């Protein structure tokens, strides 16, 4: 194409595309804004605007906690701290300490998924800011509490293939390492030889 034709084509293209772009932004001027003016001019109360199942700050219902410590083991950042020891008169296994460090928590949901009774769960609350750093650790047990013992016939509330049976709960209560041998029980026997077949295949 000759230089003159390119010259005029550039001018024409510039004018047309600028005109088109300006009409688009003019049309934006007359559409509804999508801003939600948080926190004082929201259309509905703030916690209603968050969907169900939102992974907010954690909460623990200590009445249903079996002190299995599955949440503590599964947490990637170790923000849950549970202490179970023999206290009282006569001595009984009781939960004396249940603390969640909300500053460390990354709201991933692994703890609430592994909880057999749903005691630890996410609320919809997300406004947890505070002026004191120490306020960010939440304590859920003030005085020693008996862990919950679900009746043996009751099915676990959470629906997971690797859900613990009540039997496995009480056996793994006090020690972490005991759980490893118990964990291998629900595995299908057929899975074991399959694993060795795909062994060490670099691609």
């Amino acid at each position, binding site marked *: 194409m000759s230089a003159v034709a390119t010259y005029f084509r550039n001018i024409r293209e510039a004018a047309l595309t600028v005109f088109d772009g300006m009409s688009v932004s003019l049309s934006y001027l007359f559409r509804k804004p999508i801003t939600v003016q948080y926190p004082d001019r929201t259309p509905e109360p703030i916690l209603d605007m968050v969907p169900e199942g939102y992974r907010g700050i954690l909460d623990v219902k200590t009445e249903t906690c079996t002190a299995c410590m599955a949440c503590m083991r599964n947490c990637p950042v170790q923000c849950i701290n549970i202490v179970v020891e023999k206290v009282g008169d006569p001595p009984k296994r009781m939960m004396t300490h249940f603390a969640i460090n909300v500053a460390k928590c990354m709201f*991933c949901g692994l703890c609430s998924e592994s909880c057999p009774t749903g005691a630890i769960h996410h609320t919809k609350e997300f406004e947890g800011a505070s002026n004191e750093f120490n306020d960010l650790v939440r304590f859920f047990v003030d005085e020693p509490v008996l862990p919950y013992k679900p009746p043996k016939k009751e099915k676990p509330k959470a629906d997971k293939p690797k859900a613990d049976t009540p039997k496995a709960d009480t056996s793994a209560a006090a020690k972490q390492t005991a759980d490893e041998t118990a964990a291998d029980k629900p595995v299908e026997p057929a899975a074991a030889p399959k694993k060795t077949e795909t062994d060490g295949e670099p691609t």
Partner: protein
Amino acid sequence: MPEEFAISGPDNMLLNMGPQHPSTHGVIRFVLDTDGEVVTKATPVVGYLHRGIEKIATEMTYAQFMPITDRLDYVASMCGNLAWCEAVERMAGIEIPRRAQFLRVIATELNRISSHLVAVGSFCNDVGGVTPLVVALREREAINDLLEMLSGARLTYNYMRLGGVSRDMTDQFKRQTLEFLDHFPPALDEFNRLITGNKIFVERLANIAVVTPEDAKAYGLNGPNLRGSGIEFDLRRNEPYAVYPELDFKVCTGEGFRGQLGDAYDRYMVRINEMYESIKIVRQCLEMVPDGEIKGKVPRVLKVPAGERYTRTESARGEMGIYIVSNGGKTPYRVRVRTSSYSALSIFEKLSRGLMIADLVVVIGSFDIVAPEIDR
């Protein structure tokens, strides 16, 4: 001053496009050796966002590492999840139910759209038009809401689990996704009329940072960067995984739309076209998704058999490859993540010779470089 930062020539000046800069997407530092406006040499300095993710992986179990893979590339975190799931599941031989496969693909493709929107929007912001950024983010809000409904979080979804996904989709999700899919292509057309066709934008992008196909292969580019040079290579087509073999979509390549083949405009257009293709994929998946389980059978503490394996998937930015070395224990022995932004940064110095400072911003944006992927 380190030797590689020495200026070449008495008239040159050393300029620091420092870690805090509005256009380097994240904290990356470039040391520029310029002759006025024209850059003679640009050296990237990385490591400002290093979080030791690969080291963290050696101290966590395979299931516990899942939320950390969100943060490998936090703009496209479902893709990180999928990469880890594919890597561990193939190595351990875990079966995944069909419904879970489809849900994974739906989530990944929606996340691909939202990642491309961020890439395209922030690129337009760097070139000067602020409105396209906000318009792109407005569309991304809808996807954020959808994925929030699905997984419970807005950025680091942690949606997938070894063996499936964590939650099932509801009818409301399906209905609202279809609503979004109907709304999005005309909105993207309007976005194109606002900025993609604009003559000033084309002039800023065309014929800048041309990457020849040979160079693209030599420097190991992947994803939209590679496809922008005309090479038709997409891991979803060439090494398919999940349900991609059953889906019908086009692999978008650059064709020299407004300039040479492989320039910044081509890479930009590849991303825009990929968004249209992802819409098609999500629509097909929503029609084809069967009923069934969403989690396969996985032992509570998974032990991957000893050995090593490299698995790669197509993330929004390119290839995300995870290399796991296992010694049969609960935690991996070594995890190495290969991301595409790192390869894209390697070609940066070659391309930046002779460009003006304003063009450097175009180069960074067109390669869609994000800092978390480079530094992990």
